[in-house]
């Protein structure tokens, strides 16, 4: 099966494993980027968002995802370690595995949310897992490993998108420094 056919089968409405996330509201009908999410993620970023700190955090998470789809300017780091704390998207180790961490760093008095996934192609991302950062704790590598396993469950031998530089992954970004 061709790479794109595999994705389409995962998105098939009869038995979807992935969902194309459309922004709650958008400036334009045509969005510059595409975000696919697992059912786990869809469940927590679908409103209503509660009147609690957890609801606030999940509201921020959904805003991150919708901003991505709407083509917002993202701060990106290709350095898994030593990146600025407010970096929005960062590679995770091992780099050659092509996995990335969506970094929701607000509200400021929380440790944020991390969601792991990989690029499908330029400006198309597949987010497969998520967790409150404090629940990951020191087991960050384990969390990344779980995401890679989830990817394999979904895509089998089909690997994430890979490129020579950031321009091959994203438009409208800047390097976090």
């Amino acid at each position: 099966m061709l790479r794109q056919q595999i994705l389409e089968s995962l998105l098939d409405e009869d038995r979807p494993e992935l969902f194309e996330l459309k922004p709650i509201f958008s400036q334009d009908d045509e969005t510059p980027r595409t975000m696919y999410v697992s059912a786990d993620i869809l469940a927590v970023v679908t409103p209503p968002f509660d009147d609690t700190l957890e609801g606030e955090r999940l509201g921020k998470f959904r805003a991150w995802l919708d901003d991505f789809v709407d083509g917002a300017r993202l701060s990106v780091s290709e350095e898994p370690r030593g990146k600025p704390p407010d970096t929005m998207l960062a590679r995770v180790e091992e780099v050659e595995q092509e996995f990335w961490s969506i970094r929701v760093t607000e509200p400021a008095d929380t440790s944020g949310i991390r969601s792991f996934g990989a690029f499908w192609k330029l400006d198309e991302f597949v987010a497969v897992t998520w967790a409150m950062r404090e629940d990951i704790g020191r087991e960050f590598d384990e969390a990344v490993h779980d995401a890679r396993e989830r990817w394999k469950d979904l895509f089998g031998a089909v690997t994430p998108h890979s490129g020579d530089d950031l321009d091959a992954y994203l438009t409208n970004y800047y390097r976090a420094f």
Partner: protein
Amino acid sequence: MRTSQTTTGLSRPTTDQKISVGTLAYINARNRQREYDIVIKEFEASGITQATLANRMGKSPEVICRLLSRPQNWESDTFSGLIFAISGGVPKYEITYPIGKAEFMSGLTFEVKKSSPTVGGFTPANYKLGELRPVGNA
């Protein structure tokens, strides 16, 4: 056929019931990002440096660097000041109703425009407080 998540799930406030902090977190975070995108786009199009912007705004380069580093909760004055200092522009405000208009808005459109930055011939580079003059009959 593809499965897309298209329902908004947000409801328009219609009663005096408190809006959840989660909903406001979503709305405000998206607004911050849009303000940021507007400023960065304008800054990059202008070709000026952060040092120039710092001089125009009377702020240190460190402050400007921090302001441009990421989306954040800018004060309204900071947002409008950045836009003006970068290009002499002023924000154009428009309200949209992605989850439906309130009953009192039915059939109406509403837009707030501010004056053109070219009126009066001021640019950020030569603007000084006190040079403002009334246009037309004061």
